[in-house]
């Protein structure tokens, strides 16, 4: 390099160095200091609308899928049931798709019946076997499901219903079943109406655990939120009466502990105050005087002073609770499990319905807003929808299930089909479904997981998760508007599973039976066709495919906002004609003098009846009231516990006339001293590693007593005794036992 070029290069280097130095100095420290946006994917993925199947409430959901995998489930904002909201179980549903315990291939029983030993078989063989069995089972087939009103039940009914001696039974939630049962006597439609919590200013919850086990927790939670704070200047007030301060009661303003089984009496007592007030204030002029006079007479024995001792609320307080039902503001009484779960359940539900109606009728005189009950016409629609599904609108009760199980034990059935229900675990052990199943010739079970019932089957048919399959469903309880829910596969099947509907149709086809459709999708499209033909709610100009796509993208059909006219409940003739039904008998309880405590079983928001017990998310989510995780417990009033020298975590044996279980004690101030409370859903034995041997199954404790009128399981009418079992366990509680009393630190 010569001198000149050296100078040139040098000058360029120097000047560029100077220029570079003049530039902006990096002031921001970027890479490791700023959060790297947590790696947002360039693609949001796809959102598909479908319907949640974690319970039978029928909430609409949208599912986010990325790269063919379901990532997150959210509420469908336009759906009338849940309005974009979801409960914990719904949120956790996606965990079931990718669960390590999922059944991945059909299994054929290998060992003795009920031994739980299986060998994998091909789908072809499984379907052929099922077809063969169905073909040879004329006159002795049953189909058992969880009462989810879906098309699988419809298809089963359509195929098997043609055979003589076909039985269809339902293993309902005990809490929900009673709701079907009640109210029928006073209402035109077969269940207790949806109370209009949303517009009420005062709500009286009579044992109604509406956020836990009632008709639809999400719908009620929405209404609750709206009643509390959606209206300017009006804050909905809620009062809870019942034997345990449930998480619903915790959200209310006041809790009255009422002895188990006497809530119906309380309802009548309040009705008494209302009726007397109507009469004394001279409001009765235009109301049918005769009826009022009759009621007043019938209710005389329910005067607050007379029942105060029974319900353990002072007469004066009962009158104060009744005041909102007389006053201007809309008030509603909501009946729930703690009324329905006793031998006088239907009477209690009727009493609450009566209270609501009387209060409404008085209000109507003054043209006040009052609880909007489900319009009768919509209920008709529901029945029609069920008919399209191929489902008979018959009432499925526990009595029906019991008859089925008795017949099974008698060896009456050659073939049984079980679809996503676990009666061995979640019906009373005294019903002994397990033994009964052993007497059935051939049991085929559709399931996602091996569980106590599936392991008793002869053929296990792994079903799609509901995110992978086609289905349609009608919600069990319709909140004011008719709803037809559709389910579509939002992801490809993750395992080698097949939809129960398709398998049933294929097997029936193999057996040479007449089948209503080739597969589930076609069956649903046929329903939609019928629906369009009869309802004409969807734009008739749309082609068949376009209409179908519209429905799928929405997640189902329901009337749009504008189409929903606030319907007024017509004056109820049944009410005015009512004579001698205003009576709630004292409850009868199982167990004699040796059993001093009432057994109060309940469903927690996370476990339900136990289907969620194999999900880590739900096991680890602390129970709202006890804040316990991963275990079951026995709730007792601290006074009761100290009587037996029990402290938290001590093991206690709870004995009923039907059996006994041992579980740790959780002293809880929000429970009556004469009540022992145990959550359902724990104590699985064959439901995978996460669920197994976790706590005790309290279904061992209760008998098969029923409400004589409705045939619903009286699941709270059992009495028990407790005994210190010795030993103790660590309670996995989220709240510190002292800290939980220090809420004042936040000055809430």
């Amino acid at each position: 390099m010569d001198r000149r070029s050296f100078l040139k290069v040098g000058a360029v280097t120097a000047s560029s160095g100077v220029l570079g130095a003049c530039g902006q100095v990096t002031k921001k420290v970027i890479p490791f200091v700023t959060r790297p946006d947590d790696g947002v994917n360039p693609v949001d993925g796809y959102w598909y609308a479908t319907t949640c199947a974690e319970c039978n409430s029928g909430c609409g959901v949208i599912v986010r899928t990325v790269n063919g995998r379901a990532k997150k489930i959210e509420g469908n904002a336009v759906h009338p049931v849940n309005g974009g909201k979801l409960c914990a179980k719904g949120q956790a549903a996606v965990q079931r798709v990718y669960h390590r315990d999922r059944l991945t291939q059909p299994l054929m029983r290998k060992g003795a019946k009920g031994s739980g030993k299986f060998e994998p078989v091909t789908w072809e063989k499984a379907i052929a076997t099922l077809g063969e069995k169905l073909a040879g089972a004329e006159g002795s087939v049953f189909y058992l499901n969880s009462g989810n009103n879906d098309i699988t039940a419809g298809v089963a009914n359509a195929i098997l219903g043609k055979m003589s001696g076909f039985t269809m039974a339902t293993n309902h939630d005990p809490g929900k079943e009673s709701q079907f049962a009640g109210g029928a006597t006073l209402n035109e439609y077969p269940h207790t109406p949806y109370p209009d919590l949303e517009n009420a200013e005062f709500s009286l919850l009579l044992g109604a655990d509406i956020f836990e086990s009632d008709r639809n927790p999400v719908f009620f939670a929405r209404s609750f939120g709206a009643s509390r704070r959606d209206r300017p200047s009006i804050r909905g007030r809620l009062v809870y009466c019942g034997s345990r301060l449930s998480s619903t009661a915790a959200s209310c303003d006041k809790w009255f502990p009422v002895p188990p089984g006497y809530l119906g009496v309380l309802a009548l007592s309040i009705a008494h105050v209302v009726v007397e007030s109507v009469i004394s204030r001279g409001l009765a002029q235009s109301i049918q005087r005769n009826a009022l006079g009759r009621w007043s007479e019938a209710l005389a024995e329910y005067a607050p002073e007379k029942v105060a001792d029974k319900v353990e609320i002072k007469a004066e307080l009962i009158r104060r609770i009744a005041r909102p039902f007389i006053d201007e503001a809309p008030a509603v009484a909501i009946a729930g499990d703690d009324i329905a779960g006793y031998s006088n359940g239907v009477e209690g539900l009727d009493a609450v319905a009566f209270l609501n109606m009387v209060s409404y009728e008085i209000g109507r005189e003054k043209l006040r807003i009052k609880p909007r009950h489900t319009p009768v016409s919509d209920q008709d629609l529901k029945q029609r929808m069920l008919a399209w599904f191929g489902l008979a609108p018959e009432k499925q009760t526990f009595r029906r299930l019991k008859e089925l199980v008795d017949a099974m034990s008698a060896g009456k059935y050659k073939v049984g089909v079980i679809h996503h229900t676990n009666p061995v675990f979640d019906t009373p052990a005294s019903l002994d479904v397990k033994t009964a199943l052993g007497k059935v010739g051939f049991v085929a079970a559709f399931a996602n997981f091996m569980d106590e019932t599936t392991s008793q089957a002869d053929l296990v048919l792994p079903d799609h998760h509901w995110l992978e399959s086609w289905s349609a469903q009608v919600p069990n309880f319709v909140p004011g508007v008719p709803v037809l829910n559709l389910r579509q596969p939002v992801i490809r099947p993750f395992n080698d599973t097949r939809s129960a509907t398709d398998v049933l149709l294929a097997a029936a086809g193999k057996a040479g039976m007449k089948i209503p459709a080739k597969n589930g999708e076609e069956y649903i499209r046929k329903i939609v066709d019928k629906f369009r033909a009869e309802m004409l709610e969807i734009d008739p100009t749309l082609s068949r495919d376009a209409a179908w796509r519209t429905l799928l993208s929405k997640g189902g059909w329901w009337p749009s906002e504008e189409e929903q006219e606030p319907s007024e409940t017509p004056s109820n003739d049944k009410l005015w004609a009512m004579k001698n039904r205003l009576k709630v008998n004292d409850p009868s309880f199982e167990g004699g003098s040796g059993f001093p405590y009432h057994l109060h079983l309940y469903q927690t928001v996370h476990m339900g009846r136990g289907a969620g017990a194999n999900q880590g998310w739900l096991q680890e989510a602390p129970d709202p009231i006890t804040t316990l995780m991963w275990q079951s417990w026995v709730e007792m009033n601290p006074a009761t516990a100290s009587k037996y020298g029990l402290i938290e975590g001590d093991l206690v044996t709870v004995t009923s006339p039907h059996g006994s279980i041992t579980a740790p004690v959780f002293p809880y101030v929000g429970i009556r001293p004469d009540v022992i409370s145990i959550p359902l859903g724990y104590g699985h034995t064959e439901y995978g590693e996460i669920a197994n041997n976790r706590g005790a199954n309290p279904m061992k404790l209760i008998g098969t007593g029923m409400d004589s009128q409705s045939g619903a399981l009286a699941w709270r009418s059992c009495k028990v005794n407790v005994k210190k079992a010795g030993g103790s366990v660590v309670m996995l509680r989220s709240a510190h036992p002292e800290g939980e009393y220090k809420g004042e630190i936040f000055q809430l």
Partner: protein
Amino acid sequence: MSSENIKRSHAATAGAGSHGDVMALPELETYRDPETMPARSGYDDADIFLSEKEFNDHTLRPLFTTTPAYFIFVLGLGIVMANGLGWFTYQLFVGLGQTGMHEPLFWGAYIATFVFWVGLSHSGTIVSSILRLTQANWRRPILRAAEAMTAFSLMVAGLFPLIHVGRAWRVYYMFPLPNQRMLWPNFKSPLMWDFCAIGIYMTGSITFLYIGLLPDLAVARDRAIASNNWRRHYLKVLALGWRGSHREWSVYNKCSLFLAVIILCIAPSVHTIVSWDFAMTMTPGWHTTIFGPYFVVGAIYSGIAAVITLMIVLRWIFNLDNVIRTLHIDCLAKLLVTIALIWTYFYFCEFNVVWYSHKPEEWAIFEWQGERFSLFLWIMIGGSVLNIFLMSWRRVRRSMVAMFFITLLVNCGMYIERYLIVVPVLTHRDNAYMWTDYFPSITEFSVILGSFAYFAFLYAIFIKLFPIVTMADVKEGVLISGDMRLGRHAVRLQVKE
């Protein structure tokens, strides 16, 4: 000090050449049996009654003679250390879940132990520099042992942050190194102050220890060369060719003095900053202004107690009765009583303020302490008060057995104090819902036990490699406090440094 004396002292202590072991002070009464020596005015229990050769032999014996018991001891320590290391390695690979910590108790026994070791480190250097600066004559034999303790307890303490953090392999993020990742530590964090303070203190303490060692290294080097011992290799290097010249001594003295002053300033700041790890937070029970001085006093308290324990042990093991005298223990005990009084006062202040104001979130912690750790509290507070009473008696102060147990009790109490500062506060945080309890896991126990073994191990190795008694200082003391015969009378010679 007169120049003559200095020269004499240099000649005596330098130990240069082959005749270094010859005591150059023939007029000094050379030996007196310490036990049978009649108490005589003008003499003091601190005086050393050995000839220089005897003295050198005596103090260097641990260096050059090793008994099988030593190896067994070190092997035992090695096993405990290996156990701790094993558990730590497992924790490193698996995760900190191996400890007993959980939300919201994020700091547990590790941090308590860290504070304990940092506290222990305050004895040595602080004691040594205070005593140097105040020219307390009795300090001389204990300086080395105390300084070594500082260095080693700091080394042990320095491990704990590493053991404690979640990602020990990323701990260099805390170093202020310019780098491609543009990482820069947050100097607003008390942990960074802590990191710096401990770094500085460790550097200072090790320098202080090393500078003090130089003349003694030279003596040991000469012996090692003479006896062809393998230690000559490193002693040659480390002695830096010390010859004992006038200039060397002059620089040495100045250096010691400067370092003493500097260390004296650093040491309280270090433990103040350690206390700020706690006090700077807004956590009730930690957020208090008294923590700075309280920690410093606590540190000195535990440190002095540990020095006494160590002295008694060394004296017993290496037969140093002639060098470490009852007076030394007595004087240290007096210092300990003073510090114990101050510490108890601080504890009282801290408690009294919380008790009187009774702020719920703060009182909850003390209530919980009383409930859960009542035994610990008795050992800590009761022990401290009891010690103050006991040590008021001269007989107790001069009884080696009594002092051994008293100082051990003090350090148990101080360990408990650190534990009670860290743990109950975190188990009973502001948010009462998250209250919790804590018990260290076997991993924590093993690692902490390993840290004690590690400390003892370092010390044991040190003793075999370096002179444990501050020979030069002692000799200087002998020189400047010897007798001078004036006619029939032996007159006490008092020369100030």
